[in-house]
């Protein structure tokens, strides 16, 4: 005799049953319809099927046959929450419950920041616009103090002077000494927890027509806008987290400044490549803020590496905004479904007109009236009013990289 006979469940097509995670004990007799009893194997994970049955009926190329699986086994499968594909074309995808995978899902919903706040420090921020910035990751700085900015300026100047003496050229034709200047960049923090942004400028004196003029050779700034609160609070007191470093100027100077920062503050600078997925987020977020003042076409660029081809698409900003408005619902948030729908609309439009499947290519550049971003980590800001749409997202990406994917490369690229 065995345990009381349980009626077999009839699987209902189109629904998924909740996963049962309770482990079944070893040997048991499974229910399989009136009169039939099948013995099951003793290790967990199988559901009362006979192994020999499966091996003899091994697949020999029958693609549309589900008769091999007995109804009892099907009931077992249903109970465990696994439902394999039916013979019709629509698959029943199973939800197997939350599982700790080593892969992290980046957030599916992102908030739209408010832009009605007045911009402080307008002139300094205006100096950040219209320049091609190179992005870098910066790990938290150790013992960086806002009161010692003058000291840092002097030290960096001395460092650059010694490097120049050693023969590292800053720019062709510059022989006179260069000077570095650290200053606070107000107006770039979103909350009270963000550290103030810092701007670095390297100027050289050039003699033009017997007059000595100062020329800015290299400029950079570090900021943290709306950073991850949990991470910022978990940092020890001596550390200041300014994860984004923007640099504009010759590569040699960037290397020098980077070396000095790494030596002085025990931090680490690494390159900041932007993935295609994050570029699509940027395209959607920037299509969302439509600015009447600046009329700039929305440009997207895809690259097809095997063929060395670059495809560039220009969209009228009003059309982009109209398309986005028809997809976007919630005032405060953007979900990943809206972003994917936006991109797939553009893909299908392109496919219909040109026959090129953009889903198989890689998005490398997004350019709108708000900003322009390239996958190598290059950024250009156009509008000081919409700067809050760009920087919090980049800060979030930087924090994500610090926390979950630290990449230790041995050079600045």
């Amino acid at each position, binding site marked *: 005799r065995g345990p009381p006979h349980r009626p077999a469940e009839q699987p209902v097509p189109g629904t998924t049953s909740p*996963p049962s995670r309770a482990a079944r004990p070893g040997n048991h007799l499974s229910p399989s319809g009136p009169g039939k009893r099948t013995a099951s194997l003793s*290790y*967990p*994970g*199988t559901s009362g099927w006979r*192994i020999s049955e*499966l*091996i003899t*009926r*091994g*697949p*020999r*190329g*029958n*693609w*549309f*046959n*589900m008769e*091999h*699986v007995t109804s009892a086994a099907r009931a077992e499968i249903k109970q465990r929450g*696994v439902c*394999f*594909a*039916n013979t*019709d*074309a*629509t*698959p029943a*995808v*199973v*939800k*197997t*419950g939350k*599982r700790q*995978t080593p*892969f*992290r*899902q*980046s957030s599916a919903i992102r908030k739209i920041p408010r832009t009605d706040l007045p911009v402080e420090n307008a002139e300094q921020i205006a100096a950040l616009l219209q320049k091609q910035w190179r992005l870098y990751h910066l790990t938290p700085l150790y013992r960086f103090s806002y009161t010692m900015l003058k000291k840092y300026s002097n030290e960096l100047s001395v460092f650059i002077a010694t490097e120049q003496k050693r023969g590292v050229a800053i720019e062709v034709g510059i022989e006179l000494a260069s000077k570095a200047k650290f200053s606070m960049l107000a107006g770039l923090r979103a909350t009270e927890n963000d550290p103030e942004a810092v701007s670095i400028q390297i100027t050289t004196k050039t003699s033009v027509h017997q007059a000595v003029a100062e020329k800015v050779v290299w400029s950079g700034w570090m900021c943290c806008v709306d950073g991850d609160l949990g991470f910022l609070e978990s940092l020890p007191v001596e550390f200041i987290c300014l994860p984004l470093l923007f640099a504009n100027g010759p590569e040699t100077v960037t290397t020098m400044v980077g070396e000095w920062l790494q030596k002085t503050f025990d931090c680490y600078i690494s390159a900041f*490549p*932007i*993935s*295609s*997925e994050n570029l*699509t987020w940027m395209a959607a977020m920037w299509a969302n803020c439509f600015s009447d003042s600046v009329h700039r076409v929305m440009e997207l660029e895809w690259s097809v590496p*095997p063929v060395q081809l670059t495809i560039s698409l220009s969209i009228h900003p009003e059309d982009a905004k109209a398309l986005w408005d028809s997809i976007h619902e919630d005032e405060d948030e953007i979900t990943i479904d809206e972003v994917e729908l936006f991109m797939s609309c553009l893909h299908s439009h392109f496919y219909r007109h040109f026959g090129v*499947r953009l*889903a*198989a*290519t*890689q*998005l*490398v550049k997004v350019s709108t009236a708000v900003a322009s971003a390239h*996958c*190598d980590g290059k950024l250009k800001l156009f509008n000081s009013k919409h700067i809050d749409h760009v920087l919090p997202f980049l800060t979030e990406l930087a924090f994500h990289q610090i926390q979950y994917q630290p990449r230790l490369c041995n050079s600045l690229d």
Partner: protein
Amino acid sequence: MYLHYGIYLVGSEALHLDQLAAAILKENKSFEVNVHLAKRLPLPAENEQTRPRIDLIVFLMDLRSQHSVETVKASLPYVDVNFFLGKVCFLAVGGKAVKHQSVEMYTLKQLADSYSSPLISAELESPDRRCVTARRLLQLLKVAAGLVPGVSALALSSLIRP
């Protein structure tokens, strides 16, 4: 009777399936393997009768191309349910370069979990990486074809159940 075990590689042509197939055939093994390539399923219906035996199906997905993931998702319904007991494997290609990724590894892992099959990250650019991947696939094929005594495809698949 001379048995050839069949392994099917399903994926878009940009992934250079033929190079991986060559790497699999070059490996030293004690049994004969036929490698078949397909861009998508279902296979054309003409050769239904003479189709050789299929022991392992490998679905290749490129993290850089949303299109390859969609192709695989559209092909999965055409696979007989018995295959998912350890005879199906997913391969995620292109995870090394961050800047061209348009699909997240998390989505691929969800897909593989929903079909109770393993997901292997592989790099198919250089010959040694192809060699390593080929060796791994051959090991899976050995289990799936029943050549390893004491380990069946079902046992292997039960190890990765959530």
